[in-house]
């Protein structure tokens, strides 16, 4: 296909603003599938998936419209995958910016819209759900026009649900979005903008060919990772897998690589021919590093092998997931896991619990710290337990946080951000009613109970997004929790000096409530180094007997003891103290974000 007949675009939208409905409608309007076929074919392919366990997902769909080839590229829908989103956007020349006519612009819309603008994409603004009774298309269109500095008349108004206006969108894609640029005859280069893992065929890369031409069975090379493989199959989705012999400059499609490890072909890498390939990779490759860390432990220590297998499987599809074995004397064997952000963590945790049926204990999430020792050696610390007790200085990651709220909540958000060591950057009225606030905040501050606070202080009206922008020195200390003199590794914290006392006090109080009394006095302490900052004592029990134990009904008494014994088995031993799982959960909940 000639370059000027191709258009590559994606849809940028906040969750529930109608992205997938619009995508479905585009398939129908372009007759890529008739309504009947859509049902049948999609079903067929799902059955195939079931039979063979194929998990190839359609990350890019090719449709035909008035003599043009349009490639609709899907973007990961959330904030933690900013880099992945940026790669997907780099594969496009334009983006549909879809906003709900009733809800208006959200922080996530904004973040992705800026990303699209940064990637020099042509933005086609669209107001969706104009059929809703509470829709206010004029106001939302004005917001949108303002955001991207376009004339409001250029904002399309549609209903993806009814199909109204969808054809206009496709016309606008052809008219407004420029065709891809590239050298059809140059050495082949393609951008990997996503990948997935198929248990039979290995890693499947989703690519946008920039220059030249790729052939099936050709030997290829990933330029950043240095990985070599044979292109076992090339093709595109329409929306079912359609193998082709070649993929050419400007086109979007998939490459079946046969690789058994997603980490050998990362998003952002450049593919080229193994022989006489390109000299320079495409710009913009970044090795994404996890920013948020937490310990994951099976509630039942017998489930450790299952957790390990589950993480291995998840990692196949999620190159950004990081994990390494970790042993906690309190929680047993588990893993220290790294995530791109809180949402990523939440997703991984949910998948582990839902798809793999695991019961997990998750420690309070923390960020990655750069610790400089007295000898100016730099250590990256992913767990409070690894934080040296003596050091020269510490740096912590900072974010640029964008919050959009109705104007009456601006004060509350400012107050929250100030409490969280935030630095005001700027403020902007998106409309008469809605304000965008930009702050710099330590990432660690949003990891701890931020979303809940934001939600309750703005009655749920705030939308929030962030981007990690760098590291800064912080006055941080390590707080240890001790039970009967023994530190509980899983409960150590790194906190700002000013907050240390309050956090330590809260933890100690909570533990005193949650840990049942033992057969001896148990002091509970919070300490910075050898300095105790909070202390409580769990007094020894004075009695613990099954009162009635006569009559012949011995079985019932025995069962009571058996139940008590089972309860004990679920306790974790910290030194000489027995701590029920629930106590850890309660404390970790206190620590974690309570979304």
């Amino acid at each position, binding site marked *: 296909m000639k370059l000027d007949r191709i258009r590559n675009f994606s849809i940028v939208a906040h969750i529930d603003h109608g992205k997938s409905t619009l995508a479905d409608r585009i398939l129908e309007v372009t007759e890529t599938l008739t309504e009947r076929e859509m049902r049948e074919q999609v079903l067929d392919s799902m059955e195939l998936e079931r039979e063979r366990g194929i998990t190839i997902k359609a990350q890019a769909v090719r449709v035909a419209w008035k003599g043009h080839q349009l490639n609709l590229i899907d973007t990961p829908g959330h904030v933690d995958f900013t880099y992945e989103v940026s790669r997907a956007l780099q594969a496009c020349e334009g983006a549909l910016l879809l906003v709900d006519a009733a809800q208006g612009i959200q922080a996530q819309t904004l973040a992705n819209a800026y990303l699209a603008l940064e990637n020099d994409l042509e933005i086609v603004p669209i107001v969706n759900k104009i059929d809703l009774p509470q829709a206010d298309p004029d106001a939302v269109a004005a917001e949108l026009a303002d955001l991207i500095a376009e004339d409001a008349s250029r904002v399309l108004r549609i209903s993806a649900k009814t199909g109204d206006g969808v054809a206009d969108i496709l016309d606008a894609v052809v008219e407004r979005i420029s065709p891809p640029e590239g050298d059809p005859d140059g050495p082949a280069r393609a951008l990997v903008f996503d990948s997935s893992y198929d248990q039979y065929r290995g890693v499947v890369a989703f690519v946008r060919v920039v220059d030249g031409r790729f052939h099936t069975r050709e030997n290829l090379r990933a330029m950043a990772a240095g990985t070599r493989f044979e292109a076992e199959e090339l093709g595109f989705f329409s929306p079912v897998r359609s193998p082709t012999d070649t993929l050419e400059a400007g086109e979007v499609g998939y490459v079946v690589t046969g690789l058994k490890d997603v980490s050998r072909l990362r998003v952002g890498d450049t593919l080229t021919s193994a022989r006489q390939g390109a000299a320079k990779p495409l710009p913009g490759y970044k090795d994404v590093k996890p920013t948020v860390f937490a310990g994951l432990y099976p509630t039942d220590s017998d489930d450790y092998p299952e957790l390990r297998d589950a993480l291995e499987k998840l990692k196949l599809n999620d190159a950004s997931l990081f994990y390494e074995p970790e042993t906690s004397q309190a929680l047993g064997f588990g893993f220290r896991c790294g995530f791109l952000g809180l949402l990523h963590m939440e997703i991984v945790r949910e998948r582990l619990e839902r798809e793999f049926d695991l019961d997990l204990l998750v420690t309070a999430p923390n960020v990655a710290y750069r610790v400089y020792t007295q000898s100016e050696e730099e250590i990256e610390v992913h767990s409070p337990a690894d934080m040296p007790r003596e050091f020269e200085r510490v740096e912590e990651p900072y974010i640029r946080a964008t919050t959009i709220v109705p104007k009456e909540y601006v004060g509350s958000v400012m107050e929250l951000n100030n409490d969280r060591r935030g630095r005001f950057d700027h403020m902007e009225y998106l409309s008469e009613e809605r304000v965008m606030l930009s702050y710099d905040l330590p990432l660690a501050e949003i990891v701890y109970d931020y979303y809940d606070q934001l939600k309750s202080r703005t009655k749920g009206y705030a939308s929030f997004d962030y981007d990690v922008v760098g590291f800064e020195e912080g006055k941080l200390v390590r707080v240890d929790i001790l039970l009967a003199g023994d530190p509980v590794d899983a409960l150590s914290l790194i906190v700002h000096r000013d907050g240390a006392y309050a956090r330590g006090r809260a933890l100690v109080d909570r533990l005193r409530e949650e840990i049942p009394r033992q*057969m*001896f006095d148990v002091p509970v302490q919070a300490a910075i180094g050898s300095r105790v900052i909070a202390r409580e004592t769990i007094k020894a*029990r*004075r*009695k*613990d*007997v*099954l*009162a*009635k*134990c*006569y*009559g*012949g*009904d*011995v*079985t019932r*008494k*025995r069962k009571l*003891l*058996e139940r*008590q*014994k089972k309860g*004990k088995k679920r306790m974790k031993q910290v030194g000489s103290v027995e701590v029920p799982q629930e106590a850890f959960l309660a404390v970790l909940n206190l620590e974690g974000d309570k979304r």
Partner: protein
Amino acid sequence: MSAGRVRHLYVHLPFCASRCGYCDFVTLVGREGEHGRYVDAVLAELELERGRLADEVETVFVGGGTPTFTEPAELRRLLEALPAAEEVTVEANPETVTPELAALLRDAGVTRVSLGAQSFEPRLLDVLDRRARPEDVRRAFYHLRDAKFDNINLDLIYGIPGQEPSDLERDLDEALALGPEHLSCYELEAKPGTRFTHAHGEELARQAESMEGYFELVVDTLTEAGYRWYETANFCREGLRARHNLAYWLGRDYLGLGIGAVSTVGGLRWRNLPALPRYVSALAGGEAPPRELEPLAAATQTQERLMLGLRLDDPLPLEQVEAALDLSALARLEGLGLVERQGDGLLLTRRGRFLGGGVTVELLAEIPANNYN
């Protein structure tokens, strides 16, 4: 007739004048017209099981319910039909004890009466739904003494919602003033989900901390008064332990008759189901009543031996329970001063006895599920 081996017999008489809120035994209120048929059924069950009993039965215990609420003629018929034994105990509620009843018991061969006093404080008796007043307890006690009963037990309950330490002290004083041979002192158990817990749970939770010392107060007061603290909740004048209950605590076989009654004979335990009509109709037709069977694995029996044996103040022979013991826990608990070895026996220390439940749980090696279940 081939004599069996069981030397301990329990008989359950479920009838009560009213139900006390805290009680979780199998009881039936009123049903005066049914007492005769029930006694018939119990005696039929006795005949059915007689082969299990030894020629010489050591103890008989008639419990309830309120055995002395049973119509006197029926109670007499039952008692006279039961095998003679060295110790025959009947439970009685104070308000039911008249001179006539005391004489009836005496004449029917009863040697020991267990009187459900529970408290001497009217306000607390009301909380427990008890009908008897303090003076009823004293009057009943004197009637029994007049009938020449020289082995009387008083049941006391402590930890009653609203009970102050001074209330408990007074209850103990009142009980001691009567000079019973035996005292059973139980902490009130508020079972979750019961009407009682619903009504008093909050109060109990509020009082939990202040009531923690009540058990110690009971033990201190009674041992100072010269009673032997021979079982977690039981105190006696020297030589007058409750022999029937002791049989349970020592892991002996026993036969139980009546609804809800439990028997354990040679590694098999069964419990008669609590429904009265089915019990009566089965036995009227010459059939065994409906029962729940529980075969006891050897390991389970050893665990029970440990669990019950540690409640006593006599050392528990180690060899009998070794298989069920977690030896590292034993060492740890010895270190904490909660358990001690005496010769070849195992014994809880004074503090260990106050924490007996938790200590036993620790001492028990990993509990395998009862293999037969």
